[in-house]
């Protein structure tokens, strides 16, 4: 009886509509252990590579210069950038920095270098709670992202919300549906056997419902990223997360 009561309370606490639960909680213990151990976590290879690139290219301004270090900064992204007059995620911020301060070409989305740098910068915010600004100029992106989340699309005619708001916790064959939070990304997916961006994850979701995936870095994916960050507000950044 007591065990049943505890099981019910556990279920009731997990089933609370407002509770934000990291995708980590939906993983097997083995995958969780892989993420937890920095020496075993394959995503750390990208973080370390990013650390080297950062030391070569960015450290003049950031750790030694007036811009200080970037600890906690990724928790506030995506953010509207006044100079660029658009919504920038970490990948966009890095490329903007390269363009303005290094007079360098932007790095291609999903290139090894951009994944490494964005993983490094996001890792500097590991343990920080997501806290994005959705007011002012960011508001229209937020609305656009929310619309994308609730819009049915693809041959399967499914909205993101139907799985990740309405049916999380249920089983799709052997996989428990998560709440669809972005806090692991850039992250290492076992399915990819590689590090990948959140936008690459979006493309997989869209392809899964047989919707035409949007371009990496596209405005609608950045807007969706902002909506998801707001939806996951308070959740701790886990980069580099490991996901199935």
């Amino acid at each position, binding site marked *: 009886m007591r065990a049943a009561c505890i099981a019910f309370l556990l279920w009731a606490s997990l089933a609370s509509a407002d509770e934000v639960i990291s995708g980590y909680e939906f993983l097997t213990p083995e995958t969780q252990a892989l993420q937890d151990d920095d020496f075993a976590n394959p995503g750390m290879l990208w973080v370390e590579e990013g650390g080297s690139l950062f030391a070569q290219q960015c450290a003049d301004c950031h750790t030694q210069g007036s811009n200080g270090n970037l600890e906690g900064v990724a928790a506030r992204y995506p953010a509207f950038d006044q100079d660029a007059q658009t919504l920038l995620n970490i990948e966009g911020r890095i490329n903007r920095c390269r363009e303005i301060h290094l007079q360098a070409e932007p790095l291609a989305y999903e290139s090894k270098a951009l994944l490494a740098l964005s993983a490094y910068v996001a890792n500097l915010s590991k343990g920080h709670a997501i806290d994005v600004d959705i007011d002012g100029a960011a508001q229209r992106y937020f609305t656009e992202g929310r619309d994308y989340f609730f*819009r*049915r*699309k*693809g*041959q*399967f*005619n*499914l909205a993101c919300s*139907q*799985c990740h708001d*309405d*049916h999380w916790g*249920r*089983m*799709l*064959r*052997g996989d428990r*549906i998560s709440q669809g939070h972005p806090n692991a990304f850039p992250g290492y997916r076992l399915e990819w056997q590689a590090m990948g961006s959140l936008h690459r994850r979006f493309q997989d979701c*869209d*392809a899964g*419902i*047989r*919707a*035409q*995936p949007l371009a990496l870095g596209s405005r609608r994916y950045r807007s969706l990223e902002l909506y998801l960050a707001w939806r996951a507000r308070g959740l701790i950044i886990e980069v580099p997360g490991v996901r199935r």
Partner: protein
Amino acid sequence: MRLLVATLLIAGCAVEYLVVGDGMPAPLTKDAVLAESGRDVFVDREQGHCVLCHALENLDVPFQGNVGPDLSDVGLRLTPAQIRLRIVDASVVNPRTVMPPYYRTTDLHQVAESHVGETVLSARQIEALVVFLSLQRKKA
């Protein structure tokens, strides 16, 4: 009783089907189908893969999903016409359904270029499912 004639566009030619109440009485094809092929449609990843979301007690397949209802007794709960309509387009019965429409090509958005104008399943696959599911009559 509500009567509704819906028009479906498949590869340029219009196919009409008849919705009566919450069912679709007429088969989508007159081809003979076997329950055994319905089982394959239900299970195969390349076909319906219904087991992703639905469970059947009389099915020896691991990790059956539970996003949709258990269908072990669906043959007792629903007529073949009702089962057919729910596969063709469950949103006719419940606009908020999470069940994808398996035989509809209109009023969809951002469909992958490789699938534009195609139904998820063929008429034959759906009729095989209707036969197979109508035989699921396990009493609770």
